[in-house]
């Protein structure tokens, strides 16, 4: 549909067209900040309310997988930035290559996320009737405890039960943590999936040689979106995975 440098009827110049598209994307990202803002606020208030249960919940996550995914995502931001640079400097082949690399890294991220979600299912950490945050401390054979010592885990859970005033309360509040974990990472993953779809379209367009120094607005703007989704993860990772690690 886009032809290189095609000027749509409502605009007077190509510069105006590009400025308009970029401003539109920035405003869209502002709405995204407000969108994620609502759930970050919900997280913050509940974390403040139940620091112990949230700490225990956070320590049930796999630091290895989460950390690896963070590296993967930062790398994908780098390749995305490189594809924008390649387009701006009219290196048409490189545009496609870097876009494909970005897509691969994004897919790896989502794949790792699937593994993590599956682990939560096995560990009885999906909100609902079978939720049990003490499950891993009782069934160490099923869980690999993310490299944690079993004694530490049992001790942490025991202290948690004491602080929260009973195993029921601990489970309720830990369940709140995992509601937020799935809500936040799920929304993020959804944005990644949308981003992957956009990348796929960009790759198809780029293979036709559409993007060069004269016309690269879609690469730039989808790049902005991709970076934004990465930045959301840069906030999610410490909030969900890291805060109480030193106690683990």
């Amino acid at each position, binding site marked *: 549909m886009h032809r290189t440098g095609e000027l749509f009827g409502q605009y007077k110049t190509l510069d105006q067209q590009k400025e308009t598209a970029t401003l539109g994307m920035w405003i869209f990202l502002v709405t995204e900040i407000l969108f994620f803002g609502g759930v970050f606020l*919900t997280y913050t208030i509940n974390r403040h309310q139940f620091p112990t249960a949230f700490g225990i919940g956070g320590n049930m996550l796999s630091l290895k997988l989460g950390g690896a995914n963070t590296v993967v995502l930062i790398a994908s931001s780098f390749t995305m930035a490189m594809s924008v640079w390649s387009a701006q400097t009219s290196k048409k082949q490189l545009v496609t290559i870097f876009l494909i690399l970005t897509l691969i890294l994004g897919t790896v991220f989502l794949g790792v996320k699937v593994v993590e979600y599956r682990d939560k299912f096995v560990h009885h950490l999906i909100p609902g009737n079978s939720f049990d945050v003490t499950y891993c401390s009782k069934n160490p054979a099923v869980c690999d405890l993310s490299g944690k010592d079993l004694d530490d885990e049992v001790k942490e859970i025991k202290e948690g039960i004491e602080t929260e005033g009973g195993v029921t309360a601990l489970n309720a509040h830990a369940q709140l943590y995992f509601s937020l974990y799935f809500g936040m990472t799920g929304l993020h993953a959804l944005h990644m999936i949308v981003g992957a779809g956009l990348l796929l379209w960009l790759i198809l367009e780029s293979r036709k040689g559409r993007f060069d120094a004269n016309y690269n607005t879609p690469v730039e703007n989808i790049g902005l979106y991709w970076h934004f989704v990465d930045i959301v993860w840069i906030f999610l990772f410490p909030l969900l995975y890291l805060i109480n690690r030193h106690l683990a």
Partner: protein
Amino acid sequence: MSATPNSNGGEHKLPSEHYLNATYGIRSWLLTTDHKRIALLYLASVTFFFFIGGIFATLIRIHLLTPAGYLVTPETYNKLFTMHGVAMIFFFLIPSIPAVLGNFLIPIMIGAKDLAFPKINLLSWYIYLIGGSFVLYSFATGGLDTGWTFYTPLSSIYSNSAVTPAVIGIFINGFSSILTGLNFLVTVHTMRAPGMTWFRLPLFVWAHYATSLIMILGTPVIAITLLLAGLERMFHFGFFNPAYGGDPILFQHLFWFYSHPAVYIMILPAMGVISEIIPTFVRKPIFGYSFIAASSIGIAVIGFIVWAHHMFLTGEATYAAIAFSFLSYLVAIPSAVKVFNWTSTLYKGSISWDTPMLYALGFIGLFTIGGLTGLHFWWPKITGRLYPEFLARTAAIILFVGFNLTFFPQFILGGLGMPRRYHNYPPEFQVLNVMSTAGASILALGYLLPMIYLTWSMRYGKIAGPNPWPSTGLEWKTASPPLTENFHETPVVDWEPYDFVHRPDLGLTGSKPKVPGKLSPAHGDD
């Protein structure tokens, strides 16, 4: 094409080609990217939802004719006021003026061929329809009894009504609002004609700019909030559920963070309409242009920091309540700035009592009926034809009377101690309730009349000509109805806004007035 200041329009002819006859057939409408046609698509759909909401309102008022309430069961009554609120707020009030008049007028007023993103504009209408379908599905399959506010845990756990599809529908519909706001903001920033500086923008555009700010900053928050409430209902997540330590009051905070500013999504565009109409029918420049422009932005900003005044009864901290009370009074200042400036514009003006002006003056008193006001003012531009003036004036007065008779008794009832949303009441409240129902019947007539004569005028009304009132904005410099591209050539603006004295292009050749408060009037500011 010369714009003759002719208020009769008898000798005018419709332009041979315009946006309505440029193409024909259902596809040419459903796949259009013309902002004017999309505005009409919105007009049809918001009118539909207005009818749906109106039917529920009618049933509510009939039910309240007797103290015991004789029409429906208490459960059904809860559903009626909920569905009335949902249909009216999310699918009528919020989109009505921006998506219809804003869509139609903003590009023309700033001298552009279209909005910045015409396809996204069409997309926003389809999103509205999809969201609306979910909500209608909810209405049809068990209805909705949570109140339009969807407070948790009633909405997320206890209600047995069709909450899930309604929440999904409103969530989806939010993106229609976000895309409209985004489109307007970008359009005002990047699509203005040469010479159309920020302080030459019509105040209607300023009002929509402020409205768009609220749409893009507020709507995402209600979207995530309803999403969380929906997840809680569907998957037993515990964000707002006290059983898991979640906080239902947090839902209210998030809800009102959008829903209070949403009040200004409803009122600001109407205020923009009034700012266009008053100077036109007083024949003088609007008083305090830059103050009115700034007050729109002020309302949008302050509107975001008053939300907790909806929550005084939730046990919020006394100091928080004091702060939010104070901030709520603060938002009255920019609103009052507008009213004082409109009133000052009237002073020593040559007032004519045409229908839009009647509505506008009614609006200053009532703050609610801006939509119909604007529809009358720009109807000749939209359709190229005039509506029958006598009937229209009659309808304006009927509406004013009906409105007051409907809602003043309700204010008094509230003062006497009858809460909202109650399906029955003590016998001593009956007189006032009957008065309100009677007023609602008059109001209904006041809405039906325009529906009939406006439709009639589309075919049989007198030809309006390009500038029937006459007024000074760019939209009056093009044909009525405008052609698809709005202007044959991009206009160049070399006049100050609302100059009714010296506009040779409109046949006004009085001495050039000094317009105070202008920033670099002679230059574009790109």
